[in-house]
């Protein structure tokens, strides 16, 4: 007798709202049902259901061959995922906190990312896990890891900001034949404001496509992840308090970057602010600025600005971390400066 689908994974079927975390669980669950070659590996994902409970009850449903509790060996099991991918499986690897992806950096950048180019074949695998600050997690439970991988051709990098996108993007990532790093902001996991009723159908959100979260005419904010929500908050204040119309573009996929969407928006508003939670130097704002300079310089009516975390490790104490992270007020100040420019 087949085990029954766990109740908490049927919320969308029941037309109930789900959190971003639940949306991610549903995506994994549905993909595992759809495709027998999809399987999971990671620390404490089986019996415990994952440090954040993303895979709660998966082990009972799918069994030990498809939900594998690994030794604490990110390098080892990510490499094993690559081998399994060669043999036709589609591994989804959970890194308990993405800060601990570093032991797997070698196999990801040297092996997995170069595989297709070397003629060793595609690497259809997903490496996913929680990222981001604001949780008082200190230097090793708060990092954003996108830019450690952004410079590696062959990888895709995805970073959703809503429940709907998280589900659709994760499904698309699992079906993608390229290796995908999938970042989940832990501050968004259970955010009540992000709960929504998802489409009751098998939808995907294609990789490489940004989304206009909010249309505007005076300034473009390009952002992703948790900063989407702070940017929207600032945009709304600009609208009501300053009468300035701000467009917010959520990148959703960082690699490949949706250059067209960025350029199109800048051509409309003529002003660009990039907001990211990751640290400043070598952050994605630099890449975006150069692309806009290449493709839309003539359309710019002001400097390209950025609001980011400061160039430091993520500090533990609340006061320090709040200072470290970009806040809505920072976005507001930068946007006001641009509006007046």
């Amino acid at each position: 007798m087949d085990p029954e689908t766990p109740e908490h994974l049927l919320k969308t079927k029941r037309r109930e709202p789900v959190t971003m975390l639940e949306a991610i669980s549903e995506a994994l669950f549905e993909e595992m049902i759809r495709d027998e070659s999809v399987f999971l590996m990671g620390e404490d994902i089986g019996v415990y259901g994952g440090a954040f409970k993303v895979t709660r009850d998966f082990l009972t449903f799918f069994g030990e061959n498809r939900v594998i509790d690994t030794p604490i060996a990110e390098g080892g099991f990510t490499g094993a995922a690559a081998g399994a991918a060669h043999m036709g499986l589609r591994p989804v690897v959970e890194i308990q906190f993405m800060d601990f992806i570093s032991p797997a950096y070698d196999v990801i950048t040297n092996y997995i990312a170069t595989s297709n180019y070397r003629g060793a074949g595609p690497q259809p695998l997903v490496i996913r896990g929680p990222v981001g600050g604001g949780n008082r997690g200190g230097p090793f439970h708060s990092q954003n890891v996108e830019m450690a991988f952004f410079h590696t051709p062959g990888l895709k990098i995805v970073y959703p900001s809503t429940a709907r996108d998280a589900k659709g993007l994760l499904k698309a990532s699992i079906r993608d034949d390229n290796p995908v790093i999938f970042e989940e902001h832990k501050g968004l996991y259970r955010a009540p404001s992000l709960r929504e009723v998802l489409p009751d159908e098998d939808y995907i959100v294609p990789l490489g496509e940004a989304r206009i979260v909010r249309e505007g005419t005076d300034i473009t904010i390009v952002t992703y992840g948790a900063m989407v929500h702070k940017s929207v908050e600032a945009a709304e204040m600009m609208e009501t308090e300053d009468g300035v119309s701000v467009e917010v573009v959520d990148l959703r996929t960082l690699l490949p970057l949706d250059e067209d969407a960025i350029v199109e928006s800048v051509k409309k508003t003529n002003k660009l602010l990039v907001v990211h939670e990751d640290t400043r130097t070598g952050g994605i704002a630099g890449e975006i600025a150069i692309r806009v300079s290449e493709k839309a310089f003539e359309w710019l009516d002001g400097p390209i600005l950025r609001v980011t975390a400061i160039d430091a490790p993520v500090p533990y104490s609340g006061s320090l971390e709040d200072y470290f992270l970009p806040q809505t007020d920072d976005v507001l100040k930068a946007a006001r400066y641009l509006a007046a420019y």
Partner: protein
Amino acid sequence: MSEPTLGLERAGLQDLYRSLCLTRAAEERLELLQKQGHVTGGLYRSLGQEAGAVGAAYALRRRADGTGDMLCHTIRAAGALFLFGGELIDYFRQYMAKGTSPTRGREANVHWFDFEKGFVGPVSPLGTMIEIMAGMTLSFRVRGEDRIGIVFYGDGASSTGAWHEGLNFAAVQRCPMILIVENNQWAFSTPTSKNTRVSSFTEKGPGYGIGAEAVDGTDVLAVFDAVRRAALQVRSGGGTHMIELNYFRRKGHAQHDPQDYVDPAVIRAWEKKDPLDLYRSRLLRNEWASEDELVAIEEETFEECRVAAEAAIAEPYPEGAEAVSGVYTDVHTPHPWTRSSSPDPTLA
């Protein structure tokens, strides 16, 4: 007839009990502080493991002038940290993320350092500190210093590449280092059997060409004895050594973990092997301490923790703007212009 005292005087035997009580009182105080909302981040208990940290650290040379042995503890080895001179108030400051903490609020819990006193706090990524301690003890060997290092790690950490690479390096270089494997049978929700195929970590010793010994981690004197013997060997050029402590993690991984994946009967069985209870009755049985002396120790350590915690509570959190300082020794990290009074990024 009295049991052997391993060369310890009455005062030393009671010292060990004091350290055990201090560890437990400090952690119990933390639980209280957490309920009151004073603790930032996770809280990790070492309930049932106190004797491992205390017995091991007591066997080493603890000096405050930078010439003693070197310790790298873990979150479950606060007793070792205290024995090496880590101040109780700093422990509370760290957990509360106070600006007065040794890391000025940048890092959590036992993750702090005092090279004079001879301890280096861990980082979270597991395994790394074996590499670090291998290098510290390499420097002792190449400079001919009469010092050794001891590094603690849990059973789960042994699965990391860093653990292996660091240990192998130390073994090959004959670094004067003792690795303590805190085998509490769990790594978060993962049983030791899912982190390694061997039934005892001592089986790994020969694979690295180093000596290895297992000891009952609930028995403070047995741990002290094993580490003291290992230290003697290591100190006299015997190379790297491993000691496995066998005991049980009686609480969840951290306070948020209800540990419902562990058979409650097993936990109850381990409660009977409580290291404090065991040692307490041993002290009395052998007349190494009187009931009054033990009660005094218990009351004093409880009071020390209460006073230190109260003092730490009253202290300030760091100023947010300090977040930019100290990233480099020389390069200045700028404040964001949006935080300054400057209306303009070009002026900030």
